[in-house]
């Protein structure tokens, strides 16, 4: 299994760089990862990440954009503003979760 090391934290990743083990994640690590994609985590950025951690701990899968909207109550446009381009993928990566697939 490939691993990634950021500022002394080592964690296992898949071939696309997503975490394999959610327990190897920490809030400090998220801050370091965010810097790599030019995001500075403020409260607005943290809210969806915390939701994704909590929700996936319960369901076992990374929530989709639709779930963030309908269950988490987040505004999709706002998520695109916070994490431009591919918000769910960026947030899943920062939250130490697998890439959301919405299934086959």
């Amino acid at each position, binding site marked *: 299994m490939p691993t990634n090391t950021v500022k002394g934290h080592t964690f296992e990743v898949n071939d696309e760089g997503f975490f394999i083990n959610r327990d190897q994640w920490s809030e400090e690590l998220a801050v370091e990862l965010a810097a790599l994609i030019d995001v500075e985590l403020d409260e607005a950025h943290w809210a969806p990440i915390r939701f994704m951690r909590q929700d996936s701990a319960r369901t076992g*899968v990374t929530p*989709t*954009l*639709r*779930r963030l909207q*309908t*269950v988490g109550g987040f505004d*999709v*446009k706002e998520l*695109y503003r916070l994490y*431009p*381009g*591919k918000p769910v*993928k960026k947030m899943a990566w920062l939250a130490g979760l697998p890439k959301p*697939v*919405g*299934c*086959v």
Partner: protein
Amino acid sequence: MRRVLILGAGTAGTMLANRLADQLDRSWSITIVDRDDDHHYQPGYLFIPFGTATAKQITKPRSSFLPPRVAFVRSGISRVRPDDNEVDLDDGRILGYDWLLIATGTVPRPDLTPGMGDGSLWYRKVFDFYTMAGALALQDVLAGFRGGRLLVHITEMPIKCPVAPLEFAFLADDHFRRRGLRHKVDITFVTPLDGAFTKPIAARELGNLLEDRSIRLATDFAVERVDNEHSTLIAYDGRELPFDLLVTVPLNTGQQYVFESGIGDESGFVQVDKQTLRSTRYDNIFAFGDATDLPTSKAGAVAHFAVELFGDNFQAAIAGRPLPNAFDGHANCFIESGRGEALLLDFNYDTEPLTGRYPLPLVGPMRLLGRSRINHWGKLLFEKLYWQVLMRGRSLPVPTLMSMAGKDQED
């Protein structure tokens, strides 16, 4: 009398009714509910727009596939009340049950994307082909289409038969090529995924095929709305794709009554244990086919493999014993790639589609993930198997759980 109630007489419900009629003795009553008596062979929706199948060919009466001892109730379902073990029907009747088997599938919801179902272009320039009405309307439009920008679009995953939109793109390429108009039609496949398909090896093979056929690929496209005034599909990230014809697969959700009965997730899919298909909340409820939240393809083949394993599990459930059989998410499907050829995918929860041969190593006869005429005939043969074998409650001559035999492993 002990009572089994099946909701939905489509692919999964019909198979269940036949199996249970054989399996349960006369101390049981079996009832099945559906809103009408028209059973559609849904894979046929793909061929109607291109004039290679007709509505009549792919429709048969549901009742002719149900055994005599099964009571068929024709009505819409309005609510399940799991704490009372009762189901309310649209016509006012109430049906009680001891065991409830839910097989009401999924439904396209164009009304949930702004400007789609409620837009002025709906069924003028914007169509779905996941309903009989949409497929028929598209047939006229395609026949009259003489050039321009065609978008083939998936709104969001999951959808049933996730490869059908790709097949539509390949068949459209073929259709315009044969009419000598291909150079006048610009085809783009628009998907919320980051490739042509979810699983990497299949995405690579199918992506190459799109390129071969000069079909453009727009990935990571999270649609925000359809702009009817400018005939444009707009994504949240600001991308805008103009179209002359938009063929979309709308958001697929579970049925409205599932939302309202509190037995599903936020998309209306019934939450089940992924190995036994038992409801995670009610021990006397199971769900099958597209209606579930199983993390595998929503496909007829999946419903079939899961139903195969249910018989023993149901006996155990009735006796209050642990359920012996575990479903592995086995799915397989043919992908029509146009020009009289098709590809075959075979996979489960853990194993992605690989190249190789099926069902026997080396000899096949069917090639996995490669194009061949045999696969195309396999797809056509499937329609016969569907009505004559599956809907009669018999088994397909292939393994129920996925086998690695014949698959080429890459690392």
